Protein backbone atom coordinates (compact mmCIF):
# COMPACT_ATOMS: atom_id res chain seq x y z
CA UNK A 1 0.00 0.00 0.00
CA UNK A 2 1.14 3.52 -0.64
CA UNK A 3 1.94 5.88 2.16
CA UNK A 4 -0.35 8.37 3.83
CA UNK A 5 1.35 11.42 5.32
CA UNK A 6 -0.26 13.00 8.36
CA UNK A 7 2.47 15.22 9.71
CA UNK A 8 0.56 17.55 12.00
CA UNK A 9 -2.52 17.53 14.15
CA UNK A 10 -4.17 19.90 11.70
CA UNK A 11 -3.48 17.55 8.79
CA UNK A 12 -4.88 14.70 10.83
CA UNK A 13 -8.08 16.63 11.59
CA UNK A 14 -8.42 17.75 7.97
CA UNK A 15 -7.95 14.19 6.72
CA UNK A 16 -10.61 13.00 9.15
CA UNK A 17 -13.14 15.71 8.39
CA UNK A 18 -12.57 15.49 4.63
CA UNK A 19 -14.07 12.00 4.59
CA UNK A 20 -17.77 11.20 4.72
CA UNK A 21 -17.13 9.15 7.87
CA UNK A 22 -15.42 12.04 9.69
CA UNK A 23 -18.27 14.46 9.03
CA UNK A 24 -20.79 11.95 10.33
CA UNK A 25 -18.75 11.35 13.47
CA UNK A 26 -18.74 15.12 14.08
CA UNK A 27 -22.54 15.09 13.70
CA UNK A 28 -22.84 12.21 16.14
CA UNK A 29 -20.56 13.63 18.83
CA UNK A 30 -22.10 17.12 18.72
CA UNK A 31 -25.54 15.52 18.55
CA UNK A 32 -24.89 13.55 21.72
CA UNK A 33 -24.03 16.75 23.62
CA UNK A 34 -27.22 18.39 22.34
CA UNK A 35 -29.27 15.31 23.26
CA UNK A 36 -28.06 15.45 26.83
CA UNK A 37 -28.76 19.18 26.98
CA UNK A 38 -32.30 18.67 25.70
CA UNK A 39 -32.96 16.12 28.45
CA UNK A 40 -31.49 18.32 31.18
CA UNK A 41 -33.40 21.34 29.88
CA UNK A 42 -36.67 19.45 29.98
CA UNK A 43 -36.07 17.99 33.45
CA UNK A 44 -35.19 21.46 34.79
CA UNK A 45 -38.34 22.95 33.30
CA UNK A 46 -40.46 20.26 34.97
CA UNK A 47 -40.17 22.48 38.05
CA UNK A 48 -42.93 24.61 36.51
CA UNK A 49 -45.29 22.01 38.00
CA UNK A 50 -43.93 22.85 41.46
CA UNK A 51 -44.94 26.49 41.34
CA UNK A 52 -43.60 29.95 40.52
CA UNK A 53 -41.11 30.18 43.36
CA UNK A 54 -39.41 26.88 42.60
CA UNK A 55 -39.02 27.65 38.88
CA UNK A 56 -37.82 31.22 39.42
CA UNK A 57 -35.30 30.07 42.03
CA UNK A 58 -33.99 27.49 39.55
CA UNK A 59 -33.65 30.24 36.92
CA UNK A 60 -31.84 32.49 39.41
CA UNK A 61 -29.53 29.60 40.30
CA UNK A 62 -28.61 29.11 36.62
CA UNK A 63 -28.05 32.86 36.16
CA UNK A 64 -25.91 32.85 39.30
CA UNK A 65 -23.46 30.41 37.70
CA UNK A 66 -21.99 33.38 35.81
CA UNK A 67 -18.92 32.28 33.89
CA UNK A 68 -20.00 28.64 34.23
CA UNK A 69 -23.27 29.41 32.44
CA UNK A 70 -21.39 31.10 29.62
CA UNK A 71 -19.00 28.16 29.33
CA UNK A 72 -21.96 25.82 28.90
CA UNK A 73 -23.57 28.21 26.42
CA UNK A 74 -20.36 28.41 24.36
CA UNK A 75 -20.01 24.62 24.27
CA UNK A 76 -23.63 24.31 23.17
CA UNK A 77 -23.21 27.01 20.55
CA UNK A 78 -20.09 25.29 19.19
CA UNK A 79 -21.98 21.98 19.05
CA UNK A 80 -24.96 23.55 17.29
CA UNK A 81 -22.59 25.25 14.83
CA UNK A 82 -20.64 22.08 14.01
CA UNK A 83 -23.80 19.99 13.86
CA UNK A 84 -25.31 22.39 11.33
CA UNK A 85 -22.10 22.81 9.34
CA UNK A 86 -21.57 19.07 8.92
CA UNK A 87 -25.29 18.55 8.23
CA UNK A 88 -25.21 21.21 5.52
CA UNK A 89 -22.06 19.82 3.89
CA UNK A 90 -23.41 16.27 4.02
CA UNK A 91 -26.72 17.41 2.56
CA UNK A 92 -24.85 19.01 -0.35
CA UNK A 93 -22.92 15.75 -0.84
CA UNK A 94 -26.19 13.84 -0.87
CA UNK A 95 -27.63 16.06 -3.60
CA UNK A 96 -24.42 15.57 -5.55
CA UNK A 97 -24.24 11.80 -5.10
CA UNK A 98 -27.41 11.06 -7.08
CA UNK A 99 -27.86 13.73 -9.76
CA UNK A 100 -30.53 11.77 -11.69
CA UNK A 101 -33.42 10.81 -9.43
CA UNK A 102 -35.30 7.54 -9.69
CA UNK A 103 -38.51 7.48 -11.71
CA UNK A 104 -39.85 5.13 -9.06
CA UNK A 105 -38.26 4.53 -5.66
CA UNK A 106 -39.57 2.45 -2.81
CA UNK A 107 -38.23 2.14 0.71
CA UNK A 108 -38.08 -1.12 2.61
CA UNK A 109 -36.58 -0.28 6.00
CA UNK A 110 -36.23 3.50 6.28
CA UNK A 111 -38.34 5.06 9.03
CA UNK A 112 -40.26 8.30 8.64
CA UNK A 113 -37.88 9.86 11.17
CA UNK A 114 -34.77 8.84 9.22
CA UNK A 115 -36.25 10.12 5.97
CA UNK A 116 -37.09 13.53 7.37
CA UNK A 117 -33.90 14.37 9.32
CA UNK A 118 -33.01 17.13 6.84
CA UNK A 119 -36.50 18.63 7.34
CA UNK A 120 -36.90 18.26 11.09
CA UNK A 121 -33.41 19.68 11.66
CA UNK A 122 -33.83 23.13 10.04
CA UNK A 123 -37.35 23.56 11.47
CA UNK A 124 -36.06 22.81 14.96
CA UNK A 125 -33.25 25.35 14.35
CA UNK A 126 -35.82 28.01 13.42
CA UNK A 127 -37.72 27.11 16.56
CA UNK A 128 -34.61 27.42 18.76
CA UNK A 129 -33.97 30.95 17.45
CA UNK A 130 -37.59 31.89 18.17
CA UNK A 131 -37.42 30.16 21.55
CA UNK A 132 -34.34 32.18 22.58
CA UNK A 133 -35.97 35.47 21.46
CA UNK A 134 -39.15 34.42 23.25
CA UNK A 135 -38.01 33.25 26.69
CA UNK A 136 -34.30 34.14 27.00
CA UNK A 137 -33.94 37.65 25.57
CA UNK A 138 -37.63 38.56 25.35
CA UNK A 139 -37.78 40.40 21.99
CA UNK A 140 -40.43 37.99 20.69
CA UNK A 141 -42.44 38.07 23.95
CA UNK A 142 -45.42 40.41 24.43
CA UNK A 143 -44.92 40.90 28.18
CA UNK A 144 -41.36 39.89 29.12
CA UNK A 145 -40.26 40.35 32.75
CA UNK A 146 -36.58 39.58 33.32
CA UNK A 147 -36.15 37.07 36.13
CA UNK A 148 -39.84 36.15 36.38
CA UNK A 149 -39.59 32.99 34.29
CA UNK A 150 -42.87 31.59 35.58
CA UNK A 151 -44.80 34.66 34.46
CA UNK A 152 -43.03 34.68 31.08
CA UNK A 153 -43.97 31.06 30.44
CA UNK A 154 -47.64 31.52 31.39
CA UNK A 155 -47.97 34.74 29.39
CA UNK A 156 -46.05 33.33 26.43
CA UNK A 157 -48.04 30.11 26.18
CA UNK A 158 -51.37 31.92 26.63
CA UNK A 159 -50.99 32.82 22.97
CA UNK A 160 -52.32 29.73 21.15
CA UNK A 161 -50.28 30.46 18.00
CA UNK A 162 -47.03 30.53 19.99
CA UNK A 163 -48.04 27.36 21.84
CA UNK A 164 -48.89 25.62 18.59
CA UNK A 165 -45.42 26.39 17.19
CA UNK A 166 -43.86 24.98 20.38
CA UNK A 167 -45.94 21.82 20.12
CA UNK A 168 -45.19 21.25 16.43
CA UNK A 169 -41.47 22.01 16.84
CA UNK A 170 -41.12 19.70 19.82
CA UNK A 171 -42.87 16.86 18.03
CA UNK A 172 -40.35 17.37 15.21
CA UNK A 173 -37.53 17.42 17.76
CA UNK A 174 -38.80 14.12 19.14
CA UNK A 175 -38.93 12.66 15.62
CA UNK A 176 -35.37 13.91 15.05
CA UNK A 177 -34.24 12.15 18.24
CA UNK A 178 -36.19 8.98 17.37
CA UNK A 179 -33.67 8.37 14.59
CA UNK A 180 -30.80 10.45 15.95
CA UNK A 181 -30.14 8.85 19.32
CA UNK A 182 -29.58 5.35 17.94
CA UNK A 183 -27.88 6.75 14.86
CA UNK A 184 -25.25 8.43 17.08
CA UNK A 185 -24.16 5.10 18.52
CA UNK A 186 -24.01 3.43 15.10
CA UNK A 187 -21.97 6.31 13.64
CA UNK A 188 -19.31 6.22 16.34
CA UNK A 189 -19.09 2.47 15.82
CA UNK A 190 -21.22 1.00 18.58
CA UNK A 191 -23.13 -1.91 17.10
CA UNK A 192 -23.40 -5.30 18.70
CA UNK A 193 -26.20 -7.84 18.23
CA UNK A 194 -26.68 -7.92 21.98
CA UNK A 195 -26.90 -4.18 22.63
CA UNK A 196 -28.16 -2.64 19.39
CA UNK A 197 -31.81 -3.70 19.93
CA UNK A 198 -31.65 -2.02 23.35
CA UNK A 199 -30.05 1.11 21.92
CA UNK A 200 -32.90 1.31 19.40
CA UNK A 201 -35.40 1.01 22.25
CA UNK A 202 -33.50 3.68 24.19
CA UNK A 203 -33.71 5.95 21.15
CA UNK A 204 -37.48 5.53 20.92
CA UNK A 205 -37.98 5.97 24.65
CA UNK A 206 -35.77 9.07 24.64
CA UNK A 207 -37.83 10.60 21.83
CA UNK A 208 -41.13 9.86 23.57
CA UNK A 209 -39.94 11.24 26.93
CA UNK A 210 -38.57 14.45 25.39
CA UNK A 211 -41.60 14.85 23.14
CA UNK A 212 -44.22 14.32 25.84
CA UNK A 213 -42.29 16.35 28.43
CA UNK A 214 -41.79 19.38 26.22
CA UNK A 215 -45.25 19.35 24.66
CA UNK A 216 -46.79 19.13 28.16
CA UNK A 217 -45.64 22.69 29.03
CA UNK A 218 -47.68 24.66 26.47
CA UNK A 219 -50.59 22.21 26.87
CA UNK A 220 -50.58 22.64 30.66
CA UNK A 221 -50.80 26.42 30.26
CA UNK A 222 -53.45 26.30 27.53
CA UNK A 223 -55.65 23.92 29.53
CA UNK A 224 -55.19 25.93 32.71
CA UNK A 225 -53.45 23.16 34.68
CA UNK A 226 -50.62 25.61 35.26
CA UNK A 227 -51.65 29.25 35.74
Amino acid at each position, binding site marked *: *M*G*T*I*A*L*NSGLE*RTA*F*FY*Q*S*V*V*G*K*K*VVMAVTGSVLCLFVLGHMLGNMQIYQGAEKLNNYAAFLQGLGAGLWAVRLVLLACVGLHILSAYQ*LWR*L*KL*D*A*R*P*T*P*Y*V*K*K*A*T*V*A*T*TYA*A*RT*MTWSGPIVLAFIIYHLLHFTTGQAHPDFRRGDVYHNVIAGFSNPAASLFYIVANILLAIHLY*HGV*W*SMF*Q*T*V*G*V*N*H*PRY*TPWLKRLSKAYAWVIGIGNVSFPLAVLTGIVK
Partner: protein
Amino acid sequence: MKIILNIWRQKNSSSPGKMVRYELGNVNEHMSFLEMLDVLNEELTRKGEEPVTFEHDCREGICGSCGFMINGIPHGPERGTTVCQLHMRHFHDGEELWLEPFRAKAFPVLKDLMVDRSAFDRIIAAGGYISINTGSAPEANSIPVKKQCADRAMDAAACIGCGACVAACPNASASLFVSAKIAHLGLLPQGEPERDRRAMRMVLKMTEEGFGYCTNTGECEAICPKGVKIENIAMMHRDFTRAVALFREESKAGGAG
Protein backbone atom coordinates in the same frame (compact mmCIF):
# COMPACT_ATOMS: atom_id res chain seq x y z
CA MET B 1 -48.93 -14.95 -17.67
CA LYS B 2 -48.90 -11.38 -18.92
CA ILE B 3 -46.41 -8.78 -17.66
CA ILE B 4 -46.30 -5.08 -18.50
CA LEU B 5 -42.81 -3.63 -18.39
CA ASN B 6 -41.76 0.00 -18.24
CA ILE B 7 -38.03 -0.11 -18.98
CA TRP B 8 -35.49 2.70 -18.87
CA ARG B 9 -34.02 2.97 -22.37
CA GLN B 10 -30.87 4.99 -22.76
CA LYS B 11 -28.64 4.78 -25.81
CA ASN B 12 -25.36 5.64 -24.10
CA SER B 13 -23.95 7.53 -21.15
CA SER B 14 -24.18 10.92 -22.86
CA SER B 15 -27.73 10.73 -24.22
CA PRO B 16 -30.87 11.21 -22.13
CA GLY B 17 -33.02 8.20 -21.35
CA LYS B 18 -36.72 7.56 -20.97
CA MET B 19 -39.18 4.93 -19.84
CA VAL B 20 -40.53 2.73 -22.64
CA ARG B 21 -43.56 0.48 -22.21
CA TYR B 22 -43.54 -3.16 -23.37
CA GLU B 23 -46.21 -5.82 -23.03
CA LEU B 24 -45.13 -9.42 -22.75
CA GLY B 25 -47.92 -11.99 -23.12
CA ASN B 26 -46.15 -15.34 -22.95
CA VAL B 27 -44.32 -15.26 -19.62
CA ASN B 28 -43.87 -18.60 -17.86
CA GLU B 29 -44.02 -18.38 -14.07
CA HIS B 30 -40.96 -20.66 -13.77
CA MET B 31 -38.77 -18.24 -15.71
CA SER B 32 -36.23 -16.19 -13.87
CA PHE B 33 -36.57 -12.43 -14.26
CA LEU B 34 -33.61 -12.37 -16.65
CA GLU B 35 -35.05 -15.21 -18.74
CA MET B 36 -38.20 -13.13 -19.05
CA LEU B 37 -36.04 -10.26 -20.36
CA ASP B 38 -34.31 -12.71 -22.75
CA VAL B 39 -37.73 -13.51 -24.19
CA LEU B 40 -38.48 -9.80 -24.54
CA ASN B 41 -35.12 -9.24 -26.24
CA GLU B 42 -35.74 -12.05 -28.73
CA GLU B 43 -39.06 -10.46 -29.58
CA LEU B 44 -37.43 -7.05 -29.96
CA THR B 45 -34.66 -8.50 -32.15
CA ARG B 46 -37.24 -10.22 -34.36
CA LYS B 47 -39.02 -6.90 -34.77
CA GLY B 48 -35.72 -5.25 -35.67
CA GLU B 49 -35.63 -3.15 -32.51
CA GLU B 50 -32.65 -2.66 -30.20
CA PRO B 51 -32.70 -5.28 -27.40
CA VAL B 52 -32.62 -4.13 -23.76
CA THR B 53 -29.09 -4.12 -22.35
CA PHE B 54 -28.65 -5.56 -18.85
CA GLU B 55 -25.65 -7.11 -17.14
CA HIS B 56 -25.60 -10.77 -16.19
CA ASP B 57 -23.12 -13.58 -15.92
CA CYS B 58 -23.48 -16.58 -13.61
CA ARG B 59 -27.28 -16.42 -13.22
CA GLU B 60 -26.96 -18.27 -9.94
CA GLY B 61 -26.73 -15.29 -7.60
CA ILE B 62 -23.03 -15.36 -6.82
CA CYS B 63 -21.17 -13.21 -9.35
CA GLY B 64 -22.62 -9.77 -8.66
CA SER B 65 -23.04 -8.85 -12.33
CA CYS B 66 -26.79 -8.47 -12.49
CA GLY B 67 -28.97 -5.96 -10.75
CA PHE B 68 -31.35 -3.15 -11.53
CA MET B 69 -34.36 -1.57 -9.89
CA ILE B 70 -37.73 -3.31 -10.03
CA ASN B 71 -40.48 -0.99 -8.79
CA GLY B 72 -37.91 1.10 -6.92
CA ILE B 73 -36.19 -1.79 -5.11
CA PRO B 74 -32.80 -3.16 -6.21
CA HIS B 75 -33.12 -6.82 -7.26
CA GLY B 76 -36.89 -6.60 -6.83
CA PRO B 77 -39.41 -7.35 -4.11
CA GLU B 78 -38.03 -10.67 -2.79
CA ARG B 79 -35.50 -10.40 0.05
CA GLY B 80 -32.10 -12.09 -0.06
CA THR B 81 -32.02 -12.67 -3.80
CA THR B 82 -30.38 -11.24 -6.88
CA VAL B 83 -32.49 -10.43 -9.91
CA CYS B 84 -31.21 -13.53 -11.76
CA GLN B 85 -32.56 -15.72 -8.96
CA LEU B 86 -35.90 -13.93 -8.84
CA HIS B 87 -38.64 -15.94 -10.46
CA MET B 88 -41.74 -14.75 -12.23
CA ARG B 89 -43.99 -16.73 -9.86
CA HIS B 90 -43.50 -13.89 -7.37
CA PHE B 91 -45.46 -11.59 -9.70
CA HIS B 92 -49.08 -11.82 -10.66
CA ASP B 93 -50.68 -12.01 -14.07
CA GLY B 94 -51.02 -8.57 -15.64
CA GLU B 95 -48.65 -6.89 -13.17
CA GLU B 96 -47.01 -3.67 -14.27
CA LEU B 97 -43.32 -3.29 -13.41
CA TRP B 98 -40.87 -0.39 -13.63
CA LEU B 99 -37.27 -1.31 -14.40
CA GLU B 100 -34.51 1.26 -14.17
CA PRO B 101 -30.77 1.23 -13.64
CA PHE B 102 -29.03 1.75 -10.28
CA ARG B 103 -28.66 5.50 -9.92
CA ALA B 104 -25.62 7.26 -8.44
CA LYS B 105 -23.11 9.77 -9.70
CA ALA B 106 -20.43 7.15 -9.12
CA PHE B 107 -22.41 4.61 -11.22
CA PRO B 108 -22.90 6.31 -14.60
CA VAL B 109 -25.43 4.59 -16.87
CA LEU B 110 -23.68 2.96 -19.83
CA LYS B 111 -26.76 1.75 -21.63
CA ASP B 112 -30.36 0.94 -20.64
CA LEU B 113 -30.12 -1.01 -17.35
CA MET B 114 -26.34 -1.31 -17.35
CA VAL B 115 -24.21 0.94 -15.15
CA ASP B 116 -20.46 1.37 -14.81
CA ARG B 117 -19.47 0.05 -11.38
CA SER B 118 -15.71 0.35 -11.82
CA ALA B 119 -15.69 2.82 -8.90
CA PHE B 120 -16.00 -0.30 -6.72
CA ASP B 121 -12.88 -1.78 -8.34
CA ARG B 122 -10.95 1.41 -7.65
CA ILE B 123 -12.03 1.34 -3.98
CA ILE B 124 -10.86 -2.28 -3.70
CA ALA B 125 -7.59 -1.35 -5.42
CA ALA B 126 -7.10 1.39 -2.81
CA GLY B 127 -6.87 -1.10 0.05
CA GLY B 128 -9.30 -4.02 -0.17
CA TYR B 129 -6.62 -6.68 -0.20
CA ILE B 130 -3.90 -8.31 1.88
CA SER B 131 -0.27 -7.74 0.83
CA ILE B 132 1.04 -11.24 1.14
CA ASN B 133 3.56 -13.21 -0.86
CA THR B 134 1.99 -16.19 -2.48
CA GLY B 135 3.79 -19.48 -2.38
CA SER B 136 3.01 -22.96 -1.24
CA ALA B 137 -0.05 -23.19 0.99
CA PRO B 138 0.82 -22.72 4.67
CA GLU B 139 -0.03 -25.30 7.30
CA ALA B 140 -3.76 -24.86 7.93
CA ASN B 141 -3.53 -24.51 11.71
CA SER B 142 -0.41 -22.34 11.90
CA ILE B 143 -2.47 -19.16 12.39
CA PRO B 144 -5.30 -19.62 14.90
CA VAL B 145 -8.51 -17.74 14.03
CA LYS B 146 -11.26 -17.26 16.57
CA LYS B 147 -14.42 -18.99 15.37
CA GLN B 148 -16.61 -15.94 15.94
CA CYS B 149 -14.21 -13.77 13.92
CA ALA B 150 -14.08 -16.32 11.11
CA ASP B 151 -17.90 -16.39 11.07
CA ARG B 152 -18.22 -12.61 10.93
CA ALA B 153 -15.49 -12.33 8.29
CA MET B 154 -17.26 -14.98 6.23
CA ASP B 155 -20.60 -13.16 6.52
CA ALA B 156 -18.97 -9.93 5.34
CA ALA B 157 -17.12 -11.76 2.56
CA ALA B 158 -20.50 -12.86 1.20
CA CYS B 159 -20.70 -9.44 -0.49
CA ILE B 160 -20.76 -9.94 -4.27
CA GLY B 161 -20.19 -6.26 -5.08
CA CYS B 162 -23.44 -5.89 -7.03
CA GLY B 163 -23.97 -2.28 -5.93
CA ALA B 164 -27.56 -2.72 -4.73
CA CYS B 165 -26.64 -1.03 -1.42
CA VAL B 166 -25.62 2.13 -3.28
CA ALA B 167 -28.79 1.97 -5.37
CA ALA B 168 -31.09 1.61 -2.35
CA CYS B 169 -29.37 4.22 -0.18
CA PRO B 170 -31.11 7.61 -0.09
CA ASN B 171 -27.63 9.15 -0.12
CA ALA B 172 -26.09 6.79 -2.71
CA SER B 173 -23.56 5.72 -0.10
CA ALA B 174 -21.21 2.81 -0.70
CA SER B 175 -20.73 2.28 3.03
CA LEU B 176 -22.11 -1.26 3.13
CA PHE B 177 -19.88 -2.45 0.29
CA VAL B 178 -16.74 -0.75 1.62
CA SER B 179 -17.36 -1.78 5.21
CA ALA B 180 -17.97 -5.41 4.19
CA LYS B 181 -14.45 -5.56 2.76
CA ILE B 182 -12.95 -3.69 5.73
CA ALA B 183 -14.67 -6.07 8.16
CA HIS B 184 -13.92 -9.20 6.12
CA LEU B 185 -10.17 -8.53 6.07
CA GLY B 186 -9.85 -6.65 9.35
CA LEU B 187 -11.37 -9.44 11.42
CA LEU B 188 -8.78 -11.97 10.27
CA PRO B 189 -5.18 -12.14 11.53
CA GLN B 190 -3.87 -12.02 7.96
CA GLY B 191 -5.62 -8.67 7.42
CA GLU B 192 -4.85 -7.14 10.79
CA PRO B 193 -1.39 -5.65 9.94
CA GLU B 194 -2.90 -3.40 7.24
CA ARG B 195 -6.17 -2.70 9.03
CA ASP B 196 -5.53 0.98 9.77
CA ARG B 197 -4.22 1.92 6.35
CA ARG B 198 -6.96 -0.09 4.68
CA ALA B 199 -9.70 1.80 6.51
CA MET B 200 -8.11 5.17 5.75
CA ARG B 201 -7.42 4.50 2.09
CA MET B 202 -10.75 2.85 1.30
CA VAL B 203 -12.84 5.47 3.10
CA LEU B 204 -10.94 8.26 1.37
CA LYS B 205 -11.34 6.60 -2.02
CA MET B 206 -15.07 6.08 -1.43
CA THR B 207 -15.39 9.79 -0.65
CA GLU B 208 -13.36 10.77 -3.73
CA GLU B 209 -15.45 8.57 -6.02
CA GLY B 210 -18.50 10.67 -5.16
CA PHE B 211 -20.49 8.21 -3.09
CA GLY B 212 -22.65 9.71 -0.35
CA TYR B 213 -22.50 9.11 3.38
CA CYS B 214 -24.32 6.76 5.71
CA THR B 215 -27.40 8.03 7.54
CA ASN B 216 -28.08 4.70 9.22
CA THR B 217 -31.44 4.16 7.55
CA GLY B 218 -30.73 0.42 7.24
CA GLU B 219 -32.12 0.38 3.69
CA CYS B 220 -28.96 -1.30 2.30
CA GLU B 221 -29.03 -4.08 4.88
CA ALA B 222 -32.70 -4.74 4.12
CA ILE B 223 -32.21 -5.17 0.37
CA CYS B 224 -28.72 -6.74 0.30
CA PRO B 225 -29.07 -10.01 -1.63
CA LYS B 226 -26.36 -11.52 0.56
CA GLY B 227 -27.63 -10.25 3.93
CA VAL B 228 -24.52 -8.15 4.69
CA LYS B 229 -25.19 -6.27 7.94
CA ILE B 230 -24.72 -2.60 8.84
CA GLU B 231 -22.80 -3.83 11.88
CA ASN B 232 -19.91 -3.75 9.39
CA ILE B 233 -20.49 -0.02 8.80
CA ALA B 234 -20.09 0.59 12.53
CA MET B 235 -16.81 -1.31 12.37
CA MET B 236 -15.66 0.79 9.41
CA HIS B 237 -16.43 4.01 11.31
CA ARG B 238 -14.57 2.65 14.34
CA ASP B 239 -11.56 1.50 12.31
CA PHE B 240 -11.36 4.76 10.36
CA THR B 241 -11.63 6.98 13.45
CA ARG B 242 -9.07 4.95 15.36
CA ALA B 243 -6.72 4.79 12.37
CA VAL B 244 -6.72 8.55 11.83
CA ALA B 245 -6.25 9.26 15.53
CA LEU B 246 -3.43 6.76 16.06
CA PHE B 247 -1.73 6.80 12.67
CA ARG B 248 2.09 6.75 12.80
CA GLU B 249 4.70 7.21 10.12
CA GLU B 250 6.88 4.24 9.32
CA SER B 251 10.25 4.51 10.99
CA LYS B 252 13.13 5.30 8.60
CA ALA B 253 15.47 3.24 10.75
CA GLY B 254 13.02 0.38 10.89
CA GLY B 255 14.93 -1.83 8.51
CA ALA B 256 14.41 -2.83 4.93
CA GLY B 257 11.05 -4.58 5.49
